[in-house]
């Protein structure tokens, strides 16, 4: 079982990774921007603390925390965000598609609600091969209105598959509030399919870990899917370009109140004297290395822009005449 230090270390890693990534967005090294996970770290850290390396996760457009918590190398992850050939996905995925199959990470996903069915299919494959692996699908409160996710709850419950659905309810889907977007309660939707569904404080990594561990144990033992709603507050904008759009949808007081309960402080307070500072220093060193590695790494060769398009290596035509004697 993960210790308080482990949980804090993961959260601190996610926090500093994101802060450094935001700097790189502002300096133009990361093109396109990112969806910061700051404020929600306890969820990724808590859930992934209950998982093994060979368990599968699917993530979201706000995926850095999940990928890091599941064990991906932050150095190669940052190289991915900066579009380098040394990145996890060789610079082909970027922030919204970061994936690491060696750690069971089937990828962040740019389509809201898309990962649920993929995770559930992976859970099915695990059962068929006789293993006790489980799969976890992370998604936001906006995703619970996607039909495919609701269809997926049915399949998972019907076939008693070892999948854990983790809804990170940060109260907003971009600018749409939960009150504007979700009829009824989120857990009631899951419960309607006959799976256990509970709500936990997503700022408390221990609480998340314990709830996830129970659900994962049930899944491994053949008890079918579970649903975990984690309440949270997104500290920053939906996306790093939000300020350019000059949209306002959260009152300053609300943001201040949301930020006042920082999950890192909640967990940090549980550490013995001196431990927090030591972990912070350790994480800082990793990120300094990550930034240097990302910036020193080569950009991919444009000639290989469509490498990996097909697993079989099929090559399409480039729009240039192929046949002899023509052009």
């Amino acid at each position, binding site marked *: 079982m993960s210790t308080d230090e482990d949980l804090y270390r993961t959260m601190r890693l996610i926090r500093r990774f994101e802060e450094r990534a935001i700097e790189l967005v502002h300096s133009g090294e990361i093109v396109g921007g990112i969806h910061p996970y700051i404020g929600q770290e306890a969820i990724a850290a808590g859930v992934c603390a209950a998982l093994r390396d060979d368990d599968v996760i699917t993530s979201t457009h706000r995926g850095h925390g999940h990928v890091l918590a599941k064990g991906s190398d932050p150095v190669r992850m940052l190289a991915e965000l900066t579009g380098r050939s040394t990145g996890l996905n060789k610079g*082909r995925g970027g922030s919204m598609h970061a*994936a690491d199959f060696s750690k069971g990470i089937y*990828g962040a996903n740019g389509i809201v609600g898309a990962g649920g069915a993929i995770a559930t299919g992976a859970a099915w494959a695990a059962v068929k091969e006789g293993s006790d692996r489980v799969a976890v699908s992370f998604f936001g409160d906006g995703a619970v209105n996607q039909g495919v996710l609701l269809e*997926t709850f049915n399949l998972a419950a019907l076939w008693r598959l070892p999948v854990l659905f983790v809804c990170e309810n940060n109260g907003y889907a971009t600018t749409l509030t939960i009150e504007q977007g979700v009829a009824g309660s989120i857990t009631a939707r899951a419960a309607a399919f006959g799976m256990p569904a509970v709500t936990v404080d997503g700022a408390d990594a221990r609480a998340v870990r314990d709830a996830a561990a129970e659900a994962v144990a049930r899944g491994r033992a053949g008890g079918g899917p579970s649903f975990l709603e984690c309440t949270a507050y997104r500290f920053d904008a939906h996306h790093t370009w939000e300020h350019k759009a000059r949209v306002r949808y959260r009152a300053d007081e609300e943001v201040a109140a949301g930020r006042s309960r920082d999950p890192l402080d909640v967990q940090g307070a549980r550490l013995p004297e001196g431990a927090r500072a030591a972990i912070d220093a350790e994480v800082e060193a990793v990120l300094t290395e990550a930034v240097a590695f990302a910036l020193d790494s080569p950009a991919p060769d444009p000639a290989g822009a469509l490498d990996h*398009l097909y697993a079989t290596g*099929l090559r399409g035509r480039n729009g240039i005449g192929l046949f002899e004697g023509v052009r």
Partner: protein
Amino acid sequence: MARLSYLKALQRALADEMARDERVCVLGEDIGVGVNNVTTGLLAKHGPQRVVDTPLSEQAFTSFATGAALAGLRPVIEFQIPSLLFLVFEQIANQAHKFSLMTGGQAKVPVTYFVPGSGSRSGWAGQHSDHPYGLFAHVGVKTVVPATPEDAYGLFLTAIRDDDPVVLFAPAGSLGVRADVDMDALGPVPLGVGRVHREGADVTVVAVGHLVQAALDVAEQLSDQISVEVFDPRTLYPFDWAGLAASVNKTGRLVVVDDSNRMCGIGAEILAVAAEEMRLAVPPRRVTRPDGAVLPFARELDLAVQPQRDQLLTAVQEVYKSSR
């Protein structure tokens, strides 16, 4: 030689592949009893863990298959009707197809999406009669449309063994086609290799799916006046451009017959590539459904929208007569 129907060939291909490779499983609606006759007998043989009757949840089970494939299985999905592919375009074009590139080659998604009965099935009207193969070819999903029993067998086998997602359309108009085949010679047919069903010197007719039979009829009918070569691409993506070039560079004349919509259809692409890269003596023609067509119900209307043999015949004659 034995008589083999197209439908039986599909059934046999799936049965053989499931027996050969236990990672192959099949998912779909009402496949346990085999309402489309392709999965008949498989449930009894392999059980419900490999022959999975799904709820009516196309979007979920399509990406479910992606997840299972990422985890090492080789799922085949049977779709009851071709227009269900519109429902799962996100799951195929935007998820399954993009996984390999977006992950830098970490992932492969060997799923086969299979539509036994694509195009018009008399009287099924607007929402059951499309041939959406051009959409998949456009986004680069491997797209297969066999025309004969042996190709149906061989291409289905290849699709299942392929490490990328593949959509296989079995045109409704082909399901009843029968041929004398040497059962022992049945085997995989590679993707991207077309087939010349009939050699000719004057006009190349490219025919897709069930229209291969129509093209052969027309070629026969015109045989005393015009020598028609019938080229069946068999796979629309990847397309056998070299095979087509060999034919067109010989005949210099091209007609495409394709039972899908004209605007941005596969016929348009074939004409464009031929115009850009092959030696055409005269402007090419295509016989297709009209722009943006929706198939009407009444028999007369349905037929008025689908490409007909006499239209093809006229097009071949006109192309043959025309000169620059």
